[in-house]
């Protein structure tokens, strides 16, 4: 079967946390502010609850079939035909996320650092990094994320601390933003859709088995959403929510505002390094997830030959949308609801069908 290597819970937590944080570097927080007004950070708390629930459900499923990942479980529970359909949904989810990230990170890089470089060059660079990472395996990716987490998370915390002199707590009011319903309803759903519960479920064997899945998942979600909430809160405090909905890259805008004296200003170029690392990790992870899922789906002995075609596919599809606003709109209208499908709907369905079959079996002879 596929040899994956293993890594411990510390690295798994960091890997998943970084994978979940990656969205905040993109135009995504702007969307949250649009939905929720000045209470954008609360949507993340709502999303945290949903994500924890998703992890719980997934861990229940995984514990019923120790030694298997979600791909095999789906196939077993639903039967070969429907199971394959669902698994293809998972694979296409990974590919969609990877494509989205490739395009959006490349665009973000152009806006932030290299305004005159064509998109394809940066996409190629990101995909090359992703390919290298996916080829070397999940163990190496976990180790890399463990090595870089100090700088990534530390860098984020540093920005948040450096912007404090310009924060005005009054900007957090009105407290509930556009109202509790949009905040906790649409906002939470939107926030919950950024998680990668299904990625954790695909990697579960490498992480040390289903037993640790719950604690790893909980910790990773806590870190990711907690940091995200802190980030959004600081963002809202520093810049009024009116102006905030105008910016393409809120994180970038925040780092541009840092002014700690004559010398230490405009240090956003340093954060370009943090972004690139996070983007490369994320793309490598999704590519790996897609390749491994496909390999398990087709019962292939190794996933490595699939990396190159999948990567190429990602690259080509990522260049399809004509401009950045349409890309964001695709993300909003299409990908966000689509993400709910494998992450939340699928496990619940699996659980239901599993219970049904058990009842049927018990009710049988």
């Amino acid at each position: 079967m596929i040899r994956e290597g293993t890594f411990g819970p510390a690295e798994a937590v960091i890997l998943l946390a970084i994978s979940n944080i990656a969205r905040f570097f993109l135009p995504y927080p702007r969307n949250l502010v649009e939905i929720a007004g000045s209470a954008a950070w609360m949507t993340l708390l709502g999303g945290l609850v949903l994500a924890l629930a998703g992890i719980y459900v997934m861990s229940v499923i995984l514990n019923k079939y120790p030694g298997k990942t979600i791909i095999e479980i789906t196939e077993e529970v639903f039967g070969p035909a429907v199971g394959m359909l669902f698994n293809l949904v998972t694979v296409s989810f990974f590919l969609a996320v990877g494509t989205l990230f490739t395009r959006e990170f490349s665009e973000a890089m152009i806006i932030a650092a290299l305004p005159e470089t064509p998109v394809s060059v940066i996409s190629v660079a990101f995909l090359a990094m992703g390919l290298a990472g996916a080829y070397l395996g999940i163990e190496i990716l976990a180790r890399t994320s463990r090595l870089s987490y100090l700088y990534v998370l530390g860098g984020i915390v540093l920005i948040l601390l450096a912007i404090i002199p310009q924060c005005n707590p009054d900007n957090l009011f009105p407290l509930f933003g556009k109202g509790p319903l949009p905040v906790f309803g649409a906002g939470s759903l939107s926030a919950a859709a950024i998680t990668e519960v299904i990625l954790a479920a695909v990697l579960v064997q490498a992480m040390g088995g289903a037993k640790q899945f719950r604690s790893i998942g909980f910790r990773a979600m806590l870190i990711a959403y907690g940091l995200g909430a802190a980030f959004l809160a600081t963002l809202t405090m520093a810049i009024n929510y009116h102006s905030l909905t105008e910016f393409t890259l809120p994180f970038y805008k925040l780092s541009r505002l840092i002014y700690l004296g004559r010398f230490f200003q405009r240090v956003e170029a340093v954060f370009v390094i943090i972004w690139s690392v996070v983007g490369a990790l994320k793309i490598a992870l999704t590519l790996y997830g897609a390749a491994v899922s496909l390999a398990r789906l087709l019962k292939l002995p190794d996933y490595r030959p699939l990396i190159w075609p999948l990567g190429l596919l990602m690259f080509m599809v990522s260049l399809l949308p004509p401009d950045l606003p349409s890309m964001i709109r695709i993300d909003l209208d299409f990908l966000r609801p689509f993400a709910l499908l494998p992450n939340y709907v699928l496990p619940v369905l699996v659980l239901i069908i599993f219970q049904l079959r058990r009842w049927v079996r018990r009710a049988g002879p």
Partner: protein
Amino acid sequence: MIKLKELLKMVSYQENLDREGFILKETKDDQPGIGKGSQVQAGINNEQKTGEGKQTTGADAQQGNAQAGQQLEKVEQKSGKPGQKTGKSDQQAGKAEQQHGQDREQEGADKGDGETSGWNKKLRSRRTFRKPIPSSGNNAHKAGGDGQVSPLLKENRDVITRLYGLPQNKDIVVRDFTINTVPPVRSFAVFIDGLTDSILQNLLLQAVMAFAGGTSPSGGEKIADLVKDSLLPSNQIEATSSLRKLLDGVNYGETAFFFEGCGKALLVETRGWERRSVDRPESEQTIHGPQEAFTENLRVNTALLRKMMKTEQLSTEMLTVGSRIKTYIAVMYLRDLANPALVDEVKRRIKGVKVDYLQDSGILAQFIEDNPYNLNPTFLSTERPDRVASKIIEGKVAILVDGSPFALVVPSTMYEQLHTGEETYIRWQFGTYIRYLRAFAFLISFLLPGLYLSLVLFHHEMLPTELLLAIAGNRERVPFPSIVEVLMMEFALEFIREAGLRVPGVMGTTIGIVGALILGQAAVEANIVSPILVILVAITGLASFAIPYYSLAFTTRIYRFVYIALGATLGFFGISIGLFIQVLLTANLKSFGVPYLVPTAPRTAAGADVVTRLPVFFHESRPDYLNPQDITREPKVSRTWLKKDGGDLN
């Protein structure tokens, strides 16, 4: 009026025998194997293998209408005793010659070869290059020294004469003497002059010749045992009948004694030659700690380690590597501490090295290392015995190679390669400070020029305005683009570094410093570089000197150029690409089963001594990743004198 003939003679080609001088012709082993030639070759090889002095080899035959007897003789001599070694180099040089002078030479010289087109020749030679012809070296040894000692003294002497190429080989001395037992026994001793201690030998001969009287050997085989047990007062004697062993021994400085009528010979340890004395380490200097360094002699090195680790658990296993010339390798480890799997793996790898001659530990390391294509070194090579001792006590394995003052320690991690003994011998606060400084220097040494380029070319906004305007102002006068400037200065620094190694002694440091200063200053004055770049390159150079391990410093030197290229084309994004790929490749590395970036990359138990150095009384366990047999090295309370009534007073 010149006659036509003379004119023609003048303009036609004349071979100039004086100028041509010695030409290395190929020996038979080197010839492109023709279909029939392979058999001929094999036959000729066999001839060579039996080491007949007079080479009527194919090479000779090739010389048929060859140039001069002078060359013939040279070839002869060359394919004489010291064997196949120079014969091989002969052949190799001959191959090179082959490429140049091939057409000219082979034209007439090749009798057995019908083809004359040089290109075909090359093609064939390349093809037959690939044929797995066993290297003659191996066979030579096997065939030559495979015999047994014969009871007849004359036979033994003939064998020795033949094998060593006597009487031309003046290094070998054969000393005939008689042991005056009753009845006297004729014998002779063989040794290599210069490798033996003559005083010791005189004592031995004295013992045998003068003080042996009275004893009555029972004749035959017992003579050797008698001499060994009673007569020769040497501290290491071996009686053997294997010719190979005797030859190996004599080659390495021992003396072989042959007796009349005895099928066994004695090998006596009489080593003594000029060697470098134990001196201060040349490349790894510290302020504190022992100041001894390994030398080239294996016994001296093992002794240096032994006197630090005074325990019976320290094992030294001797292996030999090299098919033509044996090199002794000592593998040292603690039997009750090191992971047996690790030791077995090390021995397995060393035994699996098939090479002609192994000169140095660096070459051995390249043979047995895990990933030869990655830039990072995965072994530690040091010349300080205290460092090796501290690693052995952690459970690692040390490999000492005879003839090399550098010992290898495996397995090795990157953090360990950034440590020196300096931090262990001084207090932990200072050690931590040095470590952090060194970590910073490590990062700077490959990132700084790339960062500068990406800042100045892409990210002007990140520099403070005054600094940027100062840089811009200074750059107005420089005619080169930034990247050319940086590359020029980097190359200049590399040249200075390389040249500084070779400038003799006293002048060396002066020229280095003065050269660098003047070069930089003059370059600035001449408007070739901007002053900020001189400072930058100097800081980078200094930072790379702060890395204690030479190979790792080399790694950063090469990475620096990669980052320069990346930074100049894609700015900070390029730098981050480089960082990501470098971390990926480095995290992928393993050194004898231990991941290269442990304990941070796979998260093992936090070491007490990775970057921050905890006080010595907190180093309670050995590094976890080695899985030694005993993980504790200090009890929880290491300073029992702290307790009120603790500590003995005796």
